[in-house]
């Protein structure tokens, strides 16, 4: 680890000020990703601004048709929240299958979505449910938030304050975990809402993506039979020691069908 200045602001306004004009400063939520990169000297921030002391960033609220979750809300709190379980059970299920208990009790929704790891679970839920990401300066719709490998629409010093998920008529998430890390090798979130059907895939590509052909087929007939012949091209998908691009393409189909079946239960 290299030297850095540590700050623990009590309000969002203070945190934003501490990050302002310091391109090498980093926010920290759960530290599950940031701290390992510091330990391996893969990052050399001038300042680390710990968001853990900011009460306004954590918590879960149900407002009308939306469940709004604060950026600092831990995965374990999403997984066990009665409000999330009753309104969007698929989201609670997803949170409960992130990593292991230690990770779920430190890692946060804001940190995970801001990091946009290609194998992270939350991006699939954000895109499939057509959620809105709220930052300290604006609201960003899901489809324009994730930009590519570890890349998002967030500007310098911009912080995720909360994410608002519309309730779904039917939804489910199915994940094929990497056998070692438990990140998603392929995760598919399927949601049927008033706005239509969305199928979002994480783990398979450089960043979360939607499968239009499946969405169209499911809009006509929301059953796994409707998508059984839809093949995902392997071109451009991730390939590593746990799964070739071809295997991931195959898993997208399997996980999507299982997700539709689970959503129909």
């Amino acid at each position, binding site marked *: 680890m290299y030297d850095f200045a540590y700050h623990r602001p009590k309000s969002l306004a203070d945190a934003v000020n501490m990050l302002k004009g310091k391109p090498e400063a980093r926010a920290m939520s759960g530290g599950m990703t940031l701290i390992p990169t510091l330990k391996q000297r893969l990052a050399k921030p001038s300042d680390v601004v710990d968001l853990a002391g900011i009460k306004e960033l954590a918590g879960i609220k149900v407002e009308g048709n939306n469940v709004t979750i604060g950026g600092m809300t831990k995965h374990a709190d999403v997984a066990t929240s009665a409000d999330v379980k009753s309104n969007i059970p698929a989201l609670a299920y997803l949170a409960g299958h992130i990593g292991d208990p230690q990770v779920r009790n430190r890692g946060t929704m804001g940190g995970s979505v801001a990091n946009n790891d290609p194998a992270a679970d939350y991006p699939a839920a954000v895109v499939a449910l057509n959620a809105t990401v709220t930052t300290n300066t604006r609201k960003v719709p899901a489809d324009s938030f994730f930009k590519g490998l570890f890349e998002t629409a967030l500007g310098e010093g911009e912080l995720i304050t909360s994410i608002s998920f519309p309730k779904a008529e039917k939804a489910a998430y199915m994940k094929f975990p990497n*056998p*070692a*890390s438990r990140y998603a090798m392929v995760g598919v979130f399927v949601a049927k809402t008033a706005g239509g059907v969305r199928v979002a895939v994480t783990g398979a590509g450089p960043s979360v993506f939607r499968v239009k052909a499946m969405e169209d087929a499911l809009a006509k007939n929301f059953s796994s039979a409707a998508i059984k012949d839809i093949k995902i091209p392997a071109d451009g998908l991730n390939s*590593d*020691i*746990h*799964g070739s691009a*071809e*295997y991931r393409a*195959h898993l997208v189909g399997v996980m999507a069908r299982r997700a539709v079946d689970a959503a129909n239960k």
Partner: protein
Amino acid sequence: MIVEGQVHGGIVQGVGQALMEAAVYDKSTGQLTSGSYMDYTMPRADTVPSFKLGYKVTPCPHNPLGVKGCGEAGAIASPAAVMNAVHDALGPIGVKHVEMPATPLNVWQSIQGTHRAAAA
């Protein structure tokens, strides 16, 4: 208790060897790509069920107490048992060989090989 614990651990170590653990090197750079537990798959408590053990006790003839080591007993038989089970399961669809460890990727690739052969 100690013997049971050692055998449980040995069995799981063998299951890990059969299904999960692999030191993988990048062919062009020689870099170890399974260099941390984020990529090197160790068996964990939730990988296996609990075991009921049975014993066949035979004293060792080569020392006065008749004692012998047992720590590796589980680890020796379990990889062969697990790989035989994998081949037994896949045999009916024409799979003759699955590389160790029989990870999901390796099993799928073996099945794809037979599907391709069957299609040709």
